[in-house]
């Protein structure tokens, strides 16, 4: 079962990207649409051999773009967490 959970927009360079989050059992992916004509990208968090996390594309071949877009998604979720904390401590 694949479930789409959330759609949000982010700034990317001089344009925008639309991010859609998808879930399958115990996995999360993101599909990204670009406003400037770059083909859509599917990416997710993976683990290096030394246990460090990194962003990568599926299928392979767009690692650089995944490393540019992934941190923006991460920042989006971090800022959401901060907002939640602010709300609950007021």
């Amino acid at each position, binding site marked *: *079962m694949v479930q789409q959970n959330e759609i949000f927009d982010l700034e990317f360079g001089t344009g925008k990207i639309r991010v859609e989050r998808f879930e*399958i059992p115990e996995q999360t992916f993101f*599909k990204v649409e670009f406003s400037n004509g770059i083909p*859509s990208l599917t990416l997710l968090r993976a683990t290096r*051999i030394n246990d460090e996390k990194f962003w*990568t*594309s599926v299928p392979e071949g767009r690692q650089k773009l995944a490393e540019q877009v992934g941190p923006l998604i991460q920042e989006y979720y971090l800022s959401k967490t901060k907002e939640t904390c602010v709300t609950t401590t007021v």
Partner: protein
Amino acid sequence: MCYYNGVKVTKSEFIRLKSIEKIVAKYDFLNKPLHVGFDYNLAPVLKRIEGEEDFDIVQMEWGFLPTPNKWPFIKTREDAAKMRFGYKDDKGKFNTPITTLNAVSEEMLLPNKMYRDAALNRRCLVLSTGFYEWRHVHGTNKKTGAPLKTAVKYPYRIKVKDQEYFYMAGIWNPWTDSETGEHVETFSIITTAANSLMKQIHNSKERQPTILTEDLAWEWLFGDLSEDRITEIGKYQFPAEEMEVYTLPKDFREALDPTECFDYAELPGLELMA
């Protein structure tokens, strides 16, 4: 070790990423607004793409159906049902079922075994997040203290510690119904002798599925293996100390969440040390 997108990752991470790739490509769910069915619970199997160190993640029918021209000559779905569930023949004699859900690692390569060709040529990995077995506990007669003949069965769920999913060794076989032309791929899970923990849980048969480490899973799927090595990997006994077990309600199969734990006050504990 492998590389994904030029980054060094473990074999299990490589398999995970490749699995996701297959899902994305096969179901094209990203162009659809909501849900697309991909029921992992049915039987997700990693099947090698011939000649490559790559695989497809496919769904296969659990219950090995042998090639029709070999014993027990299963040519149609009706034959398959008879084999799986047993049947009465013309004289009213009941023919007992032949169960092919599991293949015994110690015997699968013996001459004339229905699994031999698949074990040599069509090995696969069965993805699992956990499996179930029943522990048989014999109570005692309250008056005499003698053990009761009928056992009470307690279901357990068994997982691998700190792993969301794991791989069981499997073998598969293509099968076509000679009347309808229906074509399916069927599989059997390899079993081995139970470890110290599984001996206590699956105490009626003292067997367990052959759960593989990531290196063995890789070798099972991609290796050019001798018969001895196939048997050796098939017999691999996953260690008790890397397993996690808990009891389930007796009607867990009908529960909304069949993995939810349930404690039985009367059930003796397991001996966790080997």
